[in-house]
């Protein structure tokens, strides 16, 4: 169970980070606010999941999120890619991810452990808006050849977890920089 929860937490953390790279440069203001908020939610979900696993393992959410070497992350290749210059591919990833995530969270809601089932239900209530957002963009771009090509390109990566892209190591460097330079800092 830990491994599965870590898989979701890592996906959410890395995707949240990637999506937040659009903050300030999204296609228009309303979308900037909406997409940044989705990114924030994903990171919030990651934290809640890390906390659950950390309780079991006797560690902390921060240690799980930032103190593991990049090769131990269980996230998929899909979420690792840096797409912040291509809105079409970003939306393709967003839609592919949300559709996959929906099934995964639905299954967790039936978990025997009430803490897991409860958290999954909570996460799902926020994800409903992510799905709504992803679907409306998906419908809007569906007829665009570039969007269709992006879906074809990214679809095989949705659950590709063997090995990582070089982009993960770069992101990990950036993500853990503060923690590595000031070990044990609290805020």
């Amino acid at each position: 169970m830990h491994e599965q929860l870590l898989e979701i937490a890592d996906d959410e953390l890395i995707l949240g980070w990637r999506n937040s790279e659009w903050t300030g440069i999204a296609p228009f203001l309303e979308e900037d606010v909406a997409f940044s908020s989705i990114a924030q939610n994903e990171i919030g979900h990651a934290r809640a999941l890390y906390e659950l696993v950390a309780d079991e393992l006797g560690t902390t959410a921060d240690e799980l999120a930032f103190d593991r070497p990049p090769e131990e992350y269980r996230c998929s290749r899909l979420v690792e890619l840096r797409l912040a210059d291509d809105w079409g591919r970003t939306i393709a990833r967003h839609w592919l991810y949300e559709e996959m995530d929906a099934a995964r969270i639905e299954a967790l809601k039936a978990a025997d452990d009430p803490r897991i089932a409860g958290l999954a239900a909570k996460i799902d209530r926020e994800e409903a808006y992510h799905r709504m957002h992803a679907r409306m963009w998906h419908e809007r771009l569906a007829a665009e050849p570039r969007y269709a090509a992006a879906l074809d390109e990214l679809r095989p990566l949705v659950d590709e977890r063997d090995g990582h892209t070089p982009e993960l190591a770069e992101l990990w460097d950036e993500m853990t920089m503060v923690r590595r330079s000031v070990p044990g800092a609290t805020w």
Partner: protein
Amino acid sequence: MVFEVFRQERKGQPFQHAGSVAAPNLEFAEAYAREQYGRRGESVALWVVPRDQLLEIDDFVDELERNYHRVDGYPLKEKLKEARARAAARDR
């Protein structure tokens, strides 16, 4: 397209203009309105209306300056104060 958003802070209260969102259609407008005017628990309901569906009236003709139709410049406060003073003097 521009959509005007009205929000209701508590049940039973009037909807008040909150602001506007630019969106390509009503579906996007709903998502953006929820995001900007609803996600912090600041509203119990929203109205999202395409701006071009609103009838705006801003020409109020008053050619003959019939200001007796208006209620401004009618100092009720002063009148009340005087009436209270008179009543107090009478009761004394």
